[in-house]
């Protein structure tokens, strides 16, 4: 299945793009998608431990199942205010 990934804040500079699409097997979890992301954008891998993940508008963890048609966002720590 196809998963859309958006990169926010300086993650867009690190990857050189605001969004990308990935093909992953049905039943994959977020962590498996991340492996594909880091394969295509190795410069993003060093930020893995502080990366926040959302599926659509809610936070997600690496162990979470990717739903059909998932829109995933990856971003650094937030800093509103």
């Amino acid at each position, binding site marked *: 299945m196809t998963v859309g990934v*958006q990169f*926010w*804040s*300086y993650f867009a500079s690190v990857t050189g793009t605001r969004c990308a699409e990935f093909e992953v097997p049905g039943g994959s979890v977020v962590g498996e998608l991340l492996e594909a992301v880091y394969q295509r954008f190795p410069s993003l891998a060093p930020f893995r431990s502080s990366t*926040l993940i*959302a599926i*659509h*508008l*809610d*936070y997600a963890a690496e162990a979470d199942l990717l739903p059909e048609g998932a829109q995933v*966002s990856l*971003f*650094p720590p*937030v*800093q*509103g*205010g």
Partner: protein
Amino acid sequence: MQRWLSLSESPIDETALVGLRPDSSTSGAVLCFSGVVRNNERERPIEGIDYEAFHAMAEHQFRLLLDEVEARWPVESIRLVHRLGRVPAGETSLWVEIRSPHRGEALAALAWLIDRMKQRVPIWKHPYP
């Protein structure tokens, strides 16, 4: 709990917001916080901050936080405005007003809400120039 949430690139007109405060004679406490962009970031001078938001998710996460405030404290109303885009130093980027029967719960809810916002709401600061 009444709630009013706005994420916008427009300057925050605090005078107008205070003027539009809904009347209430059951709330004894109104606590209002303005976060102002400072003219330095980690001790280096800056002109201002460019606020980037994942807008839809930021609104959704703010709503979840407001749900939690409502569950935890007897707050009567919250109005929250976060400015996005370029905000020059000296101008307000965040404005939050909490009304409650007593000041204790307003102080606790405000401190909690801002702390959580800074962990959960997808907004990022880019100082300029």
